[in-house]
């Protein structure tokens, strides 16, 4: 029988292409157009070439925001990954406790992001907040609206509370997928709890942990709503991350040209990181010893 190709299926992709064009390509093109012009008024603009890019690349506040962003993402990973694994290891393996702990863990993930900011504003207020007032009553001055370190502590606590459950759930799924015979073999060999973790559980969780790591890095690198609601980027610029600084330029100063140049550089950073992470994800497990 003669084989023939039916290329009509390609038409099924057209709606997706149209949607992507309207939601991503056309706005991206507009941003590129804005980035080389000074928009003086609606319909009135002057071509400035690479001036906005020069200004953005020499803006020390942007450099600070970028390093702050990397520091934040690094701290998030350093705390959330080990903590998530510990929680997963401590979770029950059978009985009613499994459903109970899964539902309890999932609760923070279900709350809208800006609501989380509001919850933590009230929770950590030094006058009426349970956490803020409790810390202050111990004789420790705590005020996330005035002290940069307190703002960072509050932000990290909120972030860890919000997203560690995701790491824990993924790690738990990885743990549950390990066949029982591995544990039996370890028991016969007289392996300690640490050896079982190091040589059985950790290698077997490699795939899910990589996914958790990548998800948490990208999410924390693009964070906006929670710190915006909680601290508004303050005190001073202490918690001004890239996205918050970008919005300040775009809607606060209405510097559309500069904001566009900034967006494109931000986009290039994210694009590079996504590509690297995608490659890492593709190669997870390839050449692995286990």
């Amino acid at each position, binding site marked *: 029988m003669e084989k023939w190709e039916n290329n009509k299926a390609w038409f099924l992709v057209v709606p997706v292409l149209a949607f992507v064009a309207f939601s991503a390509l056309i706005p991206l093109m507009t941003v*590129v*157009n804005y980035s*080389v012009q000074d928009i003086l008024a609606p319909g009135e603009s002057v071509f400035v*070439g690479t001036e906005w890019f020069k200004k953005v690349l020499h803006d020390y506040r942007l450099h600070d925001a970028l390093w702050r962003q990397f520091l934040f993402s690094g701290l998030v990973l350093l705390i959330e990954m080990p903590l998530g694994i510990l929680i997963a290891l401590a979770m029950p393996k059978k009985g009613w406790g499994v459903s109970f702990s899964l539902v309890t863990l999932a609760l923070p993930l279900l709350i809208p992001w800006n609501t989380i900011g509001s919850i933590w504003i009230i929770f950590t207020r030094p006058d009426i907040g349970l956490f803020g007032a409790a810390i202050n009553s111990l004789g420790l001055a705590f005020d996330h609206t005035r002290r940069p370190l307190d703002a960072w502590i509050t932000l990290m606590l909120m972030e860890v509370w919000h997203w560690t459950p995701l790491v824990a759930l993924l790690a738990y799924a990885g743990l549950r997928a390990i066949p029982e015979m591995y544990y039996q073999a370890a028991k016969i060999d007289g392996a300690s709890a640490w050896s079982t973790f190091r040589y059985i559980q950790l290698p077997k969780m490699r795939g899910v942990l990589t996914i958790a790591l990548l998800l948490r890095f990208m999410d924390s690198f693009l964070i906006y709503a929670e710190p915006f609601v909680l601290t508004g980027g303050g005190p001073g610029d202490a918690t001004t991350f890239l996205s918050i600084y970008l919005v300040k330029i775009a809607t606060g100063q209405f510097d559309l040209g500069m904001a566009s140049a900034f967006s494109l550089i931000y986009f290039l950073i994210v694009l590079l990181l996504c590509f690297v992470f995608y490659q890492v994800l593709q190669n997870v497990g390839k050449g692995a010893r286990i």
Partner: protein
Amino acid sequence: MKLEWMYWTPITAGFFIIIALMLVGMGVWEVIAPSIERRRFLPISTTRGDRFFIGLLCSAYINIAWVGLTDWSLWFALPISIVWLVIVMRFG
């Protein structure tokens, strides 16, 4: 369809037309001679499309670095980007 809100300029329009033509060209090339995944000096296995993406992304970084680190005209960065793109496509 009015496109004034997009604030087109001849230079940005030219930029996007060239990118679009390159993408169409890559598509036609792929249909005529499908690429085979290979690994050379880049640390990962790549198809022709992957190398094109890597080349374009690096070119964007070369241009950004040029603007940020030098006061010379951006036109000098263009041949460097093209040479890099060719190197990645041919030997990557």
